[in-house]
């Protein structure tokens, strides 16, 4: 008998903006679109309000990936929060190297309130990508 190895299920922390991405995730739910349950969603008012400390904390506490969801460019409820979030993710990614994590562990994507399917697809895509990367090496480290 072949013993099946338990498949690695990544833990993803998702910061979704109140106006677009969170509503998009809501629509995916109410439309009963299936997507992997790996993402733990935290609602924020704007993707631009996601300070680096939230992302760093999620990663240091052992999250395998962090997803930041914002409105499409030009659609931000606060005009330019998503553009600023994008710049901050550039900064975050350039520091990940020092921490020993792959840049691909942080995702920033635009999902509108009407794009339930797109949210589900993005979650599938991200879960697959993180599965390929494997578990975060930080999760195993004893003193974090």
């Amino acid at each position, binding site marked *: 008998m072949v013993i099946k190895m338990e498949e690695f299920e990544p833990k993803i922390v998702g910061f979704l903006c109140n106006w677009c991405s969170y509503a998009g995730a809501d629509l995916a739910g109410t439309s009963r679109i299936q997507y992997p349950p790996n993402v733990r969603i935290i609602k924020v008012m704007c993707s631009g309000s996601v300070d*680096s*400390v939230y992302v*760093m*904390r999620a990663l*240091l506490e052992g999250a395998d990936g962090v997803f930041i969801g914002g409105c499409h*460019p*030009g659609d931000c409820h606060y005009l*330019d929060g*998503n*553009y*600023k979030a*994008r*710049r*901050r*993710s*550039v*900064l*975050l*990614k*350039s*520091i990940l*190297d*020092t*921490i*020993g*994590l792959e840049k691909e562990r942080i995702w*920033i*994507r*635009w999902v509108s309130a009407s794009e339930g399917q797109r949210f589900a697809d993005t979650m599938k895509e991200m879960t697959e990508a993180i599965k390929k990367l494997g578990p975060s*090496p*930080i999760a195993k*480290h*004893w*003193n*974090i």
Partner: protein
Amino acid sequence: MTDKILKIKNGDTVGSVNDLLKELLKSKKVQALLVMQEVPSKAMSFPVLISDPDKLNSNVFAPVLPVATASVISKITKVGSASKLIGVVMRSCQIRALLELVKLNQANIENIVIIGVDCLGTFPVNTYSNFPEKATPTEFILDSFKKKNDAVKYLRSSCYTCKDPVPTNADVVIGLYGMGSQKELLIQINTEKGKQLLEGFSLEELKDKKNREKAIKEIREEKTKNRMEFIKDKSNIKGIEALAKFFDKCVNCHNCMKVCPICYCKECLFESSVFNLEANKYIGKAEKKGLFKMPNDSLLFHTTRMNHMVVSCVGCGLCEQACPSDIPLMEIITPIGENVQKEFKYVPGSDIEEKVPLVIYKEDEYQEIGEK
């Protein structure tokens, strides 16, 4: 831009500059001066705000940076700017930091006239106060400039790898580099403010500017070379094991944050009770891995500091100097800073009109990051 000469009297470089500054106070060109002055015990030099010319006994070349002068100016001007002119004498790294603070709305330089001093580098606070040589630290560094000895062994690593020891963006520059026999100093007037400051002073014109230009080019090249070698040498801190080891000695005192001129939040998340959990949560965390180091937020603190500071890091190295555990912080901050600033094509403290990268954006940039 006008280049003038200040004659050094009796070989007393420090005193000659002091005399000039005294005249500024006496003639009421400035209401007060913020300048490095030795404390009575001579064990340390601090930025001192001086209004009485008779109390002025400055040492602008004191090779020590106990606190960030830029933070001091932020403190002086943030609540309300001065109604009359204040002269501030600063090194190049602190001018860069001050410009960053102005951009971040943490300082006001409306009624500030910046007098920059060519920097020969600084020693750690303890080396300065217990100086192992016969000469005073100031004499030693000035002698070292005349190639009579070598001060490099005492320099802080951030000074050895300085981004630019020559002040840019100062209204007036007191210059050492390229002034030949050290019988005279350069007084360079860069702005209208600087011109008004020195109006009525009889200073000779500097005729041959080539030496100065050549010397500046040389020192900048030398420092850049040092920095690149330092980065190449030290960029090996990669991965969680190496990072955790690097910060093993951290005692969570947050000194590095408190001395940083760029770090300005009134209320810091890491000084708040956000990370105080109820006992059961701590036990839960321990149970997850079987053990749990306390206090638990030091790596989060340092990685967050990296995120918050490196874009504007001017390389003053005060964080490293303030560390009671002697963690060589610049070994990690310098490579990351260089990397991130290159990414945003941003040189902190170089242009007051240029906005800090994280508050601006372009609609069509980094599209590969937001979209696949």
